[in-house]
């Protein structure tokens, strides 16, 4: 009896979470029933006290704090997480536990003593060991105190599959483990689910989407023994499988589209999301999946994909808050990496060990900072710079883009060869008198025409127009429309303008006659932007008026025509030799077009190398490339032959009048090709990656977890309580990744299969998917977990095979219909005596609505999209200067109707559909979602415009496809949503609802119009009927059966 009640205690937390989701009064009833029923079942199950199931949880929760792994807090000189110490001698000389002898076991005596000074746990600990727990401990000691290592820390071995009485039931090994337990408890498994229900369930579990009516029909018609397996194989092969599996992983990897802290600016990271999808679809073995994410960059000759994978280490939130202390930010980022890896791969709560040795599990602070040392040497700034691509990043190009670039590079190579050939052909003779070869010439250099200069960074993507809008030269002109002061610019051009005397900066401008500006301004950057010229009113107050920082150049030019504006370099304070690498175009109000921007240089043209070189030397050789400059500066006699040749080549290409024109055009071709290459490269997305710094950063134990409190210096090392690094690997990130996926690693395979189990069955075999330690829950089916983990490794970490094994089991195929007593006995279905039944996740709910209404756009990958959400959600919280302070919804259905996986996640204000339905904000690693049931969810599913849109589309769909008969339409609608035909009662209710709505909408035609107006494409449908069906669809989409995986 004692044992029985104890089990009830252990399971109590399990139902407690569940009870958040249901009404309170009900939860109390359930809890009482659950406690008793399970306890009765388990009583027959246990003859001996099970150390891991029954004793360790008590010791951990009540004793480890002072008698556990943490040496600093240890009292009495003994520990109860360690057999030798527990059975040995304490400081006092007493023996904590003496097998078979409770009277001599100090632990037991301290539990039962009346002396409050001696009683354990101490009163001020606020911990209490129940009478039942004490009795269990006594029984265990009486039974010889058999000790076992913590279940999660021994390598999973393939246990033998237990025998069962109902030999016909099992379909695979899983069923043997499940049934063996049920038989011990004398519980019968549930019958198999109906085919349609099973198809809907498995389609959701493998793809996150409902089956199509055709798929349902095909499956119902297929009586072959392989029918179900064929469906499973089809689903596993579908691209939607990877999208669905990726979603869980992205919760764990804490993937988001913004940095997550302070400004919370945009972060371009979606190539990593797509890599995860591809990996699941390609069934990348989980060991490889792990290695690439933790150390893809360290693999030999890493591919783009392997480098993208390291984004896992960069998904953590980052900041660039003004005033932040770099070292503190650096420590936080690295800690996040370590803690996430602890949760995702080790199922361990490493965060505890940031500040002290773990109080429950075998991890020390030294272990923590030794792991820290693997992840602290990133080649980049740990502050995000508020940019979308804080380095290290990888730019990703498509195969086509890569090919295009290769072809352009080929062009460049050819032109360069041509150039060399031409050079060799020039016959140059130095004139006798070097003074003769000199004339003055005006040369115009176009710097911006259709593209910004090579390598230049734009303030924002420039807006370009083509004819019929005003364009002066080339294919397009840049433009801007503003209210008040507004500008666009480029800076950091790869080849700056080198200022020479008498140069004129010019640009052509066209002012919109219908919307002229008050003022226009140009501005140049030679390291600062304090060089401005303006035309028109003096309303832009940058710089000092009348000075080089704000020079008035006249009235606004006439509108409606192209006008050339010129500014001499001296006017705006630019000096010879200055390198101008940026140009800005500012305006106050109005619409302005700019085109053909550049500089006119009056320069001397030479036909004598000696004369040119002499003049250059005298002028300081400014503006020449470095190597040429140094040659020019050498005295003629000191130049080597090679230098002479180099100088001559330069002269012939760039200066010598008779040959320069030929070379100018060749150079222009090279430049054009290079600009194109740069433009292609710039168009490719970037993604954050991890790259190891050349020099490894030192790591210390940080006292109390404080970034600036360096303790003992530590080296890279795996936790002492786990197996060592395998032979033959380097002690670096790659070695650590390989260590995680060594076959004898006790945790990784268990933790991973448990998460897959959780995806499919709703609750993991270990409910605390994030914590396999002493404070986590013990597995409901320890041998099954062992078997699955060992088999997973044996199968070469084959994910699809493992998932397939789960959904092929008879356990999975059971119906979820059960007598209420069964639900009450085991609300979370931990015994697996019925099929899984849970509310669909946020993403599945939206995807389902889009799918069955026919709106869903199935497209794999790409940038995140912004389906509409209520106004002001970002603005209410966003930092004023953030680039995500204002939400601008996408309007193209190709974007707004994509799977929820692709919805843009601003982490400080996540999409309401996701956060209302329990999806995490992605600010921190999450491996288990809670499932709640709230009125706000009901409001969302009824009224969110996206769900209303889906209802309208579903209504229109059945009206056009299911004939004129209301019965047929209602049947079709119900069938689309549930995958089964309605029964007579259901049909009656749907039809009654339809008729009621129709009567009302006929009376109020305006209301009908309002409800259906957005569906313009369906103009031929009667608005009242469409409105009435829309309400029926709204009803159907809210049915419990539809929002639930049954």
């Amino acid at each position: 009896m004692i044992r029985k009640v104890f089990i009830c205690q252990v399971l109590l937390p399990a139902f407690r979470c569940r009870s958040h989701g249901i009404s309170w009064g009900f939860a109390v009833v359930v809890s009482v029933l659950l406690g008793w029923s399970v306890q009765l079942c388990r009583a027959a199950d246990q003859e001996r006290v099970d150390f891991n199931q029954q004793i360790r949880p008590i010791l951990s929760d009540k004793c480890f704090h002072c008698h556990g792994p943490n040496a600093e807090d240890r009292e009495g000189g003994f520990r109860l997480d360690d057999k030798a110490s527990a059975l040995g001698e304490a400081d006092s000389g007493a023996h904590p536990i003496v097998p078979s002898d409770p009277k001599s076991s100090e632990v037991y005596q301290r539990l039962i003593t009346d002396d409050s000074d001696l009683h354990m746990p101490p009163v001020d600990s606020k911990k209490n060991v129940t009478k039942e727990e004490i009795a269990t401990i006594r029984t265990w000691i009486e039974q010889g105190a058999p000790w076992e290592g913590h279940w999660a820390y021994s390598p999973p071995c393939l246990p033998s599959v237990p025998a069962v009485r109902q030999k016909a039931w099992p379909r695979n090994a899983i069923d043997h483990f499940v049934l063996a337990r049920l038989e011990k408890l004398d519980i019968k498994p549930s019958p198999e689910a109906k085919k349609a229900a099973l198809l809907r369930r498995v389609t959701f579990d493998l793809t996150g989407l409902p089956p199509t009516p055709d798929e349902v029909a095909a499956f119902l018609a297929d009586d072959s023994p392989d029918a179900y397996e064929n469906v499973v194989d089809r689903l596993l092969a579908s691209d939607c499988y990877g999208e669905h599996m990726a979603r869980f992983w992205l919760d764990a990897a804490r993937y988001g589209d913004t940095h997550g802290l302070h400004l919370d600016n945009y972060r371009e990271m979606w190539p990593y999301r797509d890599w995860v999808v591809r990996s699941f679809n390609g069934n990348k073995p989980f060991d490889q999946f792990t290695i690439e994410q933790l150390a893809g960059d360290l693999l030999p000759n890493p591919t783009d994909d392997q480098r993208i994978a390291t984004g896992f280490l960069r998904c953590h939130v980052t900041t660039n808050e003004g005033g932040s202390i770099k070292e503190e930010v650096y420590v936080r980022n690295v800690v996040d990496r370590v803690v996430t890896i602890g949760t995702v791969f080790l199922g361990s709560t490493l965060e505890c060990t940031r500040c002290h040795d773990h109080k429950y599990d075998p991890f020390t602070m030294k272990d923590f900072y030794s792991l820290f040392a693997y992840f602290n040497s990133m080649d980049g700034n740990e502050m995000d710079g508020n940019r979308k691509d804080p380095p290290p990043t990888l730019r990703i190009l498509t195969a086509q883009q890569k090919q295009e670039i290769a072809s352009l590079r080929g062009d460049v190579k050819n032109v360069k060869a041509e150039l060399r050939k031409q050079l060799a052909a020039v016959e140059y003779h130095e004139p006798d008198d070097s003074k003769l070869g000199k004339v003055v010439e005006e040369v115009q250099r176009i710097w911006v025409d259709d593209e910004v200069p090579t390598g230049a960074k734009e303030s924002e993507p420039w807006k370009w127009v083509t004819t019929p809008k005003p364009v002066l030269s080339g294919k397009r002109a840049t433009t801007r429309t503003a209210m008040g002061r507004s500008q666009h610019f480029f800076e950091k051009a790869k080849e700056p303008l080198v200022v020479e005397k008498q140069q004129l900066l010019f640009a052509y401008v066209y002012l919109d006659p219908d919307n002229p500006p008050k003022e226009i301004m140009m501005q140049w950057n030679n390291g600062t932007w304090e060089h401005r010229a303006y035309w028109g009113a003096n309303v832009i107050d940058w710089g000092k008026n009348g000075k080089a920082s704000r020079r008035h150049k006249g009235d606004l030019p006439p509108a409606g025509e192209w006008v050339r504006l010129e500014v001499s370099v001296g006017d705006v304070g630019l000096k010879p030799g200055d390198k101008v690498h940026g140009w800005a175009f500012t305006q106050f109000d109005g619409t302005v077009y700019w085109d053909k921007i550049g500089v006119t240089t009056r320069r001397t043209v030479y036909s004598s190398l000696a004369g040119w070189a002499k003049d250059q030397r005298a002028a300081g050789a400014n503006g020449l490339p470095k190597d040429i400059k140094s040659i020019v500066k050498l005295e003629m006699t000191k130049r080597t032959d090679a230098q002479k040749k180099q100088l001559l080549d330069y002269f012939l290409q760039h200066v010598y009048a008779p040959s320069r024109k030929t070379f100018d055009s060749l150079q222009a071709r090279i430049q054009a090709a290079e600009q194109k290459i740069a433009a292609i490269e710039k168009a490719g997305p970037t993604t954050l990656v991890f790259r190891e710094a050349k020099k490894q950063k030192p790591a210390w134990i940080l006292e109390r977890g404080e970034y600036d409190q360096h303790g003992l210096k530590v080296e890279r090392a795996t936790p002492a309580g786990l197996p060592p690094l395998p032979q033959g690997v380097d002690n670096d990130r790659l070695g650590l990744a390989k260590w995680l996926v060594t076959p004898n690693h006790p945790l990784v395979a268990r933790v991973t299969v448990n998460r897959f189990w959780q995806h499919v069955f709703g609750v993991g075999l270990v409910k605390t998917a994030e914590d396999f330690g002493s404070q986590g829950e013990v597995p409901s089916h320890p041998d099954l977990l062992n078997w699955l983990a060992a088999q997973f490794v044996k199968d070469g970490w084959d994910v699809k095979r493992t998932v397939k094994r789960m959904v092929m089991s008879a356990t999975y195929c059971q119906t979820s219909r059960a007598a209420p007593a069964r639900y009450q006995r085991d609300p979370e279905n931990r015994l697996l005596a019925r099929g899984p039944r849970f509310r669909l996740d946020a993403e599945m709910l939206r995807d389902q609505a889009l799918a069955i209404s026919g709106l869903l756009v199935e497209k794999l990958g790409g940038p995140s999209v912004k389906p509409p959400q209520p106004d002001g959600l970002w603005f209410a919280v966003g930092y004023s200067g953030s680039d995500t302070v204002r939400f601008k919804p996408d309007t193209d259905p190709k974007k707004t109707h994509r799977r929820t996986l692709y919805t843009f996640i601003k982490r400080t204000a996540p999409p309401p559909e996701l956060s209302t339905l329990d999806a995490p904000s992605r600010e921190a690693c999450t491996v288990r979602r809670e499932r709640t049931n709230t009125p706000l969810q009901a409001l969302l599913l009824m009224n969110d415009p996206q769900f209303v849109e889906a209802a309208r589309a579903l209504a229109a769909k059945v009206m056009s496809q299911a004939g004129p008969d209301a019965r047929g339409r209602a049947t079709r609608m119900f069938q689309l949503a549930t995958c089964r035909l309605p029964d007579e009662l259901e049909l009656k209710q749907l039809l009654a609802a339809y008729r009621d709505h129709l009567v009302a909408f006929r009376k109020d035609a305006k209301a009908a119009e309002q409800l259906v107006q957005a569906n313009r494409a369906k103009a031929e449908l009667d608005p009242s009927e469409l409105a009435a069906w829309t309400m029926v669809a709204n009803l159907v989409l809210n049915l419990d059966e539809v929002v639930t995986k049954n």
Partner: protein
Amino acid sequence: MDPIREYVQSMTRRHFLSRSAMGLGSAALAGLLPPTGGAGEPAKRSGGLPGVPHFAPKAKRAIYLFMAGAPSQMDLFDYKPEMDKLFDKDLPESIRMGQRLTTMTSGQKRFPIAPSKFEFKQHGRSGAWVSELLPYTAKMVDDIAIVKTLNTEAINHDPAITYICTGHQLPGRASLGAWLSYGLGTLNENLPTFVVLTASWTGRKEAQALFNRLWGAGFLPSKYQGVSLRSKGDPVLFLANPKGVSPATRRRMLAALDRMNQDTLERYGDPEIQARIAQYEMAFRMQTSVPELTNIAGESKHVLDMYGPDVTKPGTFAASCLLARRMAERNVRFVQIFHRGWDQHGNIGGDLPNQCRDVDQPCHALIQDLKQRGLLDDTLVVWGGEFGRTVYCQGKLTRENYGRDHHPRCFTVWMAGGGIKPGVVYGQTDDFSYNIVDNPVHIHDMNATILHCLGIDHQRLSFKWQGLDVRLTGVEPHQPVKAILA
């Protein structure tokens, strides 16, 4: 007959029929609470943890007026007359003691003292010093307890505001309001348990960000997260029916949904279905109760005047305070109003008076209004930000204008109402409002105090997460501030 059906029908048929007969609409409407008359009216609790509150609470509900960005304590409450003589003198090293600064000022060559340009006077029986910027607050010093020695470790906004609101500097933890919902449950099922308002402001335009995590549920189930009450669009997300769907249409749809879900319950036997049915009914009730809450047409002119001219502009701090009072009347457990724009790195002379004007009169009105309705006795009100500001100047210093950087070592908050001893000034800072001389109050101590007023022992309200019993107030020992408790 199907045994599942049989069982469920025997359990629910009578209830189901009786409700159907009444019609969902009337049942729902009958359950809708009229505005309550005030304190003392017994409200039925639902949800929450057994055994919580741990002891008889002084406050049943709380309103937290959060000044995001960090108000300058020495320009508002922490009067430092000695500073006047030290204008533009360097902050003595003996005061700063090499403490870390944000990198916004750590590079400054000098740390010149910027005395407050504002006048201070003593007020009330307590003799509390209050700056001329807060004339209304000054009038009620005998209603409130001023704590001058709050302190924190975080020196930047994001970590600091996350810390004070969720007990931890990094994202992922449950917010104060989520803890209260989780522990105490609700007293009014027709309104959210924890409501958040983000008010407009008129001080520094470039305001620090807020984050949904500040009222998030963190590791707690998401049903405990704060619900934003918005001033534009739907007050509660997706509250309004789509255009063309009248309340009658919605009721018709819900009646059918109810019947069909009952049928599913009979089919499957899963009690979760029953919970879902209840949630839809509650959603329908919210469609009435929330608009009723936000409609202030019935407020008297006298009351509106008390809150000042902004009260009729939706989204202002004054309007938010009035709504907070209306929610207190309706037993909403926790209301948090975030007012931004307090990050005065520069232009204290220009921006701070505007910020104060936003909040001063409404704060006073809220306290008086609650008092007049007998609600102040069991409603806790808290005013404060995430840290303080430095006595030394950031940027250009003149007598008339200056800026102040972040200062975590001391700042001022005030508390009032249920559980708080009124007319108290607690804690003493040094002459520079830089270090604490007497009675430090860590932000965890303040959160422990808030919980205490609501009948919760902060050490015993915990949630098992990642193997630990996690608390709002962290692992180090902290305690409620006894001296300000009534």
